[in-house]
């Protein structure tokens, strides 16, 4: 018997006991989780899903859904998910983390999971900074972006420009992996991409989605300014599926 949905604004797989929400008002992470929940509902996979999360703001989702959740250490949701998936091949395993977890401290595991075509789905929520610690510069911070560790704006010459994670991963990933960037400003596209990413795991392949997200608390922006900033991010970080522009050298050797 189908459960009667009483709260139309939240996914069915949402755990009501996780309320009151720990996320800040306007947080893009909770928007992402909500849409991921809708996708999980649509695909009817909540009974077959294991979710692994990082620290930072992603840890706030440790009991967000009504399925098994592993909250692990910084940058380690991917290797934990890989170990789990190897042991329960029929489960769908999603590893979620922030841009620090995915692109700084845990980058090697993201790259190697893509390189091996480990059949998991990795999601990086990119809000251009370390949020739980109060808004420090991240690899994804935009050039000239002001953060607490780039008080005069991120100097690209010293710290690098804007870190393009999915494009980097595409270069090393197996050709059967699905790699895309979505944004919380376009929920329909976000859900379509998440659905493709999960289905690609079901087909036995790695998939990776970066979600451009909002952090009004650390950006110190109101609603309008937050979406303006997100608009700037979307100009630097193009959304959609990332396809290889040049021939991937790995593909010649993985036949």
């Amino acid at each position: 018997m189908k459960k009667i949905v009483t709260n139309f604004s939240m996914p069915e797989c949402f755990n009501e006991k996780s309320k009151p929400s720990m996320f800040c008002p306007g947080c893009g992470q909770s928007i992402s989780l909500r849409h991921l929940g809708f996708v999980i509902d649509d695909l009817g996979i909540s009974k077959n899903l294991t979710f692994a999360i990082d620290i930072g703001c992603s840890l706030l989702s440790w009991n967000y859904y009504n399925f098994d959740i592993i909250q692990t250490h910084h940058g380690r949701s991917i290797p934990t998910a890989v170990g789990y998936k190897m042991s329960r091949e029929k489960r769908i395993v999603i590893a979620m983390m922030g841009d620090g977890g995915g692109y700084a401290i845990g980058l090697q595991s993201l790259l190697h999971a893509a390189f091996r075509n480990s059949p998991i789905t990795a999601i990086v929520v990119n809000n251009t900074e370390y949020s739980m610690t109060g808004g420090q510069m991240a690899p994804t911070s935009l050039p000239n972006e002001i953060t607490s560790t780039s008080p005069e704006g991120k100097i690209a010459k010293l710290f690098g420009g804007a870190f393009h994670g999915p494009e980097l991963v595409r270069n090393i990933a197996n050709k059967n992996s699905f790699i895309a960037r979505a944004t919380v400003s376009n929920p329909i596209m976000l859900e379509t991409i998440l659905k493709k990413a999960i289905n690609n795991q079901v087909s036995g392949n790695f998939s990776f989605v970066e979600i451009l997200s909002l952090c009004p608390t650390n950006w110190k922006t109101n609603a309008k300014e937050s979406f303006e900033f997100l608009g700037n991010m979307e100009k630097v970080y193009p959304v959609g599926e990332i396809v290889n522009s040049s021939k991937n050298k790995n593909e010649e050797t993985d036949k």
Partner: protein
Amino acid sequence: MKNSSYITGNEAIVLGALAGGAETFFGYPITPATEILEGWVNASLEDKNLHFLQTEDEIAAGFAVNGAILAGKKAFTATAGVGHILMQDPISMAENERLPFVAIIAQRGGPSTGTVIYSQQEVNLASFGGNGDGLRIVYSASSVEESYTLSSKIFSTAWKYNFPTMLLTDGYIGKEKNTVDLPKLIKPYPSRKILKQDPSSPTHIRNCYGSEPEFAKVLRQNISDYKKLIPKVAECEDYKTSDVNQIIIAHGSVAQAAKFAVDMLRASGIKIGLVRPITLRPLDCHAISLKTKKANKVFIIESAFEQLARLIIYKMPEIGAKAVKVFKPAEGFTPEEIEFIVKKNRK
């Protein structure tokens, strides 16, 4: 009937792990533990139920072990030195989330490459290396045969008590090749799904807490559980200790040499025996206290500086008062050397 084999310590570890019900291995090559990875890979070619992944680093290996354990598999890793340091983050996760993490630590000397074959310098790290209070179970193997029995036993200990369980060896034991009798082992303690895969009651496992009192409650429970396992897990071997004036306390390879030294010293009329902790965490304080009670001198001998001695003397300060402490960090001992040390210091 005993099963006799001509094998190395590292080969014995793979056989022991299989006997203990191990199913999955994650690791990264590092001397002197590499043969365990290689041996497991070969075993998995013969048995399709065995899995392995050579990961990008030891951190990933350790977290993949945690992931596999959460799925209910008896997973383990083998590492050494610098790899053992990187392994502390996943072991800390396991310690606090009460996961039956299993690791073989083939001790080597110092940081970086340091020396690659031998030391007893990883006792502190295995016992207390993480963020937390060191609620771990640490065994120390003293021979090829014991590499087999203990590498089987650690899986049962880990899954029964739900604390990270490590087996310390070193490159001498791992690469030593002997004819050993592989004893029949007790039936391994079973594994179970830790993430229950039950949508009506999801498992939410975490290392993040909203307040100190909330976390303290978890820690109090863990400490209480750890104290309860001590009498069931702690063990030591005593060798010729019934009529002694002096006792040697040593573990691992040093204990192997000390056993020969005891025989040599007894041949020249010196009443000495050996107490060998098999578990370093927790220590079998009851047996160690009893066996050392009548001794007028206790020789604590180790290939490290104050690592075993600190464990012993903190728990049993009365031993400290009569201890002769002999430290040779990252260097081994011969039986003759121990014989000489005892003869020189026993008066």
